[in-house]
């Protein structure tokens, strides 16, 4: 039983982390068709923000709840800066945007390497995350449960925001038909900036969660960006539910592969699984029906 429960629970937590990393990516990619390869570095910024908050508020019980909104805003502002300075010039060149953001990612990584100690910084885990929850005989670390709860809250908040607020409505209008949205008086450029802020901010939140599970260093973003993108691709563009299912599936698959083989081989197998899956459903899990040829 343990052989089934442990990878399932660990994998679900891993999937939740992937989901947090992929949410923002899915949002910006879905709306603007822009791949932000610096998204992983925004995640890193969120993690470092958590560390910096801890330097100010030393009680780790309190610092993590404070760090979440701080990381959201800090990473979001970095995203906004990137949008305003660079990405706005390149909406017609999606592939080039990808490369430019690779360059931005390199610069951010190097900057983090020089500002912070190169071996990374410790983010104290709050005491209330230390315990374990016994699930069918398996001691499940509480911080994994916390990751899942955090992801659930983020997804719920994001979908409610998209569904019920005027901003969300405008974003959905822009995704559905940019020209028509513009015609009805929506400033699609403003909406783009807003989306980029929120998407990058979500990466920051993901960074806080990642700092509680793994190490916080300048390389941490790079290891999330490709799995996160694969999740977005497998889930289907601009589809929140697809992203959720895909993230969970990839997380659990990773955990089971790692359980059966080794951690690195598991990554290889998961990558191959996603590539094979995209063979069967190139548009992802859930697709928006469209008559466009592309």
């Amino acid at each position: 039983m343990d052989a089934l429960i442990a990878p399932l629970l660990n994998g679900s937590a891993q999937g939740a982390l992937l989901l947090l990393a992929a949410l923002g990516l899915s949002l910006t990619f879905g709306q603007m068709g822009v791949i932000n390869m610096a998204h992983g570095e925004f995640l890193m910024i969120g993690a470092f923000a958590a560390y910096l908050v801890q330097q100010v508020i030393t009680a780790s019980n309190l610092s993590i709840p404070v760090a979440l909104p701080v990381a959201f805003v800090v990473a979001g502002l970095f995203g906004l800066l990137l949008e305003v300075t660079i990405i706005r010039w390149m909406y017609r060149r999606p592939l080039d945007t990808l490369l430019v953001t690779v360059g931005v990612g390199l610069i951010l990584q190097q900057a983090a390497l020089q500002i912070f100690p190169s071996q990374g910084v410790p983010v104290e885990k709050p005491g209330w995350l230390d315990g374990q929850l016994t699930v069918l005989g398996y001691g499940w670390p509480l911080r994994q449960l916390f990751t899942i709860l955090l992801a659930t809250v983020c997804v719920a908040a994001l979908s409610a925001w998209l569904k019920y607020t005027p901003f969300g409505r405008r974003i959905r209008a822009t995704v559905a038909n940019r020209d028509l949205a513009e015609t009805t008086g929506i400033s699609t450029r403003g909406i783009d900036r807003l989306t980029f802020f929120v998407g990058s901010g979500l990466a920051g939140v993901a960074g806080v969660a990642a700092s509680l599970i793994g190490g916080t260093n300048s390389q941490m973003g790079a290891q999330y960006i490709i799995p996160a993108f694969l999740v977005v691709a497998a889930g289907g563009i601009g589809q929140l539910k697809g992203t959720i299912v895909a993230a969970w599936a990839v997380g659990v698959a990773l955990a089971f592969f790692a359980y059966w083989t080794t951690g690195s081989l598991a990554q290889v197998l998961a990558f191959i699984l996603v590539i094979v899956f995209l063979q069967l459903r190139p548009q992802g899990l859930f697709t928006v029906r469209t008559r466009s040829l592309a």
Partner: protein
Amino acid sequence: MTKPRTTGLKPWFSLGGIAVFAVLLLAIAPLVLTDHWLNNLGKYCCWAIAAVGIGLAWGRGGMLAMGQGVFFALGAYAMAMHLTLETAGDRVPGFMVLYDPLAPLPVFWEPFRSAGFTLLAIVLLPVVVAGALGYALFKRRVKGAYFAILTQALAVALATLISSTIRETGGDTGLSDFKYFFGFVLNDPANRLMVYLIAAALLIVCLLAVWQLYRSRFGELLVATRDAEERVRFLGYDPANVKLVAFVVSALMASIGGAMFVPIVGIITPAEIGAAASILMIAGVALGGRASLFGPALGAMAVGWGQSSLGSTWPDGWTYLLGLLFVVVILFLPNGLSSLPAKLMRRARRSPAERPAPAIAPAQLEEVRS
């Protein structure tokens, strides 16, 4: 925005350029450069060979192949396995018996004892892998950013796989300490010169190959596929096949570059083939000019030089420089340095005073065109 132009210099003019380049690399460089720098130049040539392939796939075909490290690795590891076995002779290579003195040679190493098989593998492995991958992706119309990230994911996966199989592939330490190159002693300066000349000659051959491809019907079709894939489909061609050929050729070139990298540099590790290395290859192509004939090769040499000199003496600055290179070049000079002379010339010819006021604002023009 402006797309890479394909109409460049007249084809025969380019052929002359290749000839000049050949004379520089094959005749003048060995006379002028010290052994150390000649070896470095050989290394840059290997990256340039891979870059020529990227130029074909990305610059002309619009396929941003961000995982050319995979094919670089296929060639490099095929060559490295052969050279390791050649050095080890009848015994099992040293690193394998490090952990287990009685370790047998892994089955997939066995055929690489044969020189013929190795050479065949360097050519056929990338063709088969890129063929299968390309067929699967292009027939399902996977393109754009998807293609880019999937290929990069493969490069990451392969590098991870090699890192983790330390007993079979040497892991992170890689394969090194080669003594012989198809029977020639690698320490001998004359033989090192020969290895350099082979790499440089292969670069020239690759340039000639893409020169011919660019001026052929296939080259036109490839550019057409890049710019308007649907129109090509409606004209009765299958864009998937066109892209497949370009991708396979570019993979083959990456593999050849990788194969020559091994005897010249003397070591191959997963770090030379992973995501960062693949990005580095793209950087050179972007800098030189993705769609031009010489741009990718020269750009890759420049970035290669930066990586191996600045990268070791001033690593922090080099990373910033590399990041800035991506941002600045792609933002302001999407066609790389090779488009700079034409751009400056155009600007010089029309001084601001006599430039006619545009009848339509550029933004509107953009709208109409798209």
